[in-house]
């Protein structure tokens, strides 16, 4: 299926939740959806006949300076088509439902997004940091991140 067809299909099913279609000259076109509906939309995309996105290639966090976001790169091994979903999240206390129950691979990806951006995923079974130490302060990939001076008594900067 073409990306435009998938988008039309999705728009028909979720007229309220599907917000925007971003067609780009380079890279995959993407669809912006309502963050609160991400679980239902992903479940539909995985289970619906003709779509069957059974593979979550990548889930990543984003910092757009005025807002946060998440990006889902989906792929269907059966139909060999791709689809990209984006969500936008508020700057204050960003959180959205987890898709871990749909694709198990989202478990670590969501933990990484939490570790690097502080985006919280609701209903995630193990929402803790994955790379940084558990007592690390701040979220390193945020644009306004300022690094720690010391960690456990050891000086970090030069």
């Amino acid at each position, binding site marked *: 299926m073409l990306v435009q067809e998938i988008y039309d299909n999705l728009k028909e099913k979720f007229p309220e939740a599907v917000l925007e279609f971003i067609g780009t000259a380079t890279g995959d076109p993407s669809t912006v959806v309502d963050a609160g509906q991400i679980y239902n939309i992903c479940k539909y995309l995985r289970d619906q006949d003709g779509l069957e996105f059974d593979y979550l290639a990548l889930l990543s966090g984003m910092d757009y300076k005025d807002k946060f976001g998440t990006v889902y790169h989906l792929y269907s091994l059966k139909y060999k088509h791709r689809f990209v979903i984006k969500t936008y999240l508020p700057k204050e206390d960003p959180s959205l439902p987890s898709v871990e129950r749909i694709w198990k691979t989202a478990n670590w990806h969501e933990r990484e997004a939490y570790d690097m951006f502080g985006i919280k995923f609701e209903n995630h079974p193990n929402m803790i940091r994955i790379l940084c*130490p558990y007592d690390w302060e701040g979220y*390193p990939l945020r644009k306004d991140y300022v690094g720690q001076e010391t*960690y*456990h008594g*050891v000086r*970090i*900067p*030069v």
Partner: protein
Amino acid sequence: MGFLNRLDDPFNAEGIILGKVEDLLNWGRARSDWYLSFGLACCAIEFMAVNASHFDLMRFGCIPRPSPRQADFIIISGTVTMKMAERIITLYEQMAEPKYVLSMGSCANSGGPYWEHGYHVLKGIDRVIPVDVYVPGCPPKPEAFLDGIVKLQKKINQQAIFKKRAKLAEEEKIIVND
């Protein structure tokens, strides 16, 4: 250099070599320095090449030990993150004296490419544990690594075992407290 050189000029009587016990002990220690089998980042790949048959680290008497309690020296082969630094300190403390540290590559020496903007990287392993030999390079060639091993052996050869404090310089006595 040490014990073995006296073989070139042996005493006339058969089987007698005059030498210091210290030289004998150091000769043995320098040529059987077992290292902790411990790799960190891309330098560890180069380190594995040193272990393989082309460069054959074992001809220097270096045998990998899986436990820090059996190791004489530890090779910090790669980028040390703040999270890993604590583990390295634990490993170092578990090693038995005398122990040595060989810092391998730019990252372990000074932070390397993470020198300025690496929020999570320790800027040089010598901030947490004392280092005996620094091997420069990113990553160091196996030849450079072997040179570091030879440097470590030379250092062990020159070390005092008996009456350590008497042989130290005045300024060192203030720092070293054994």
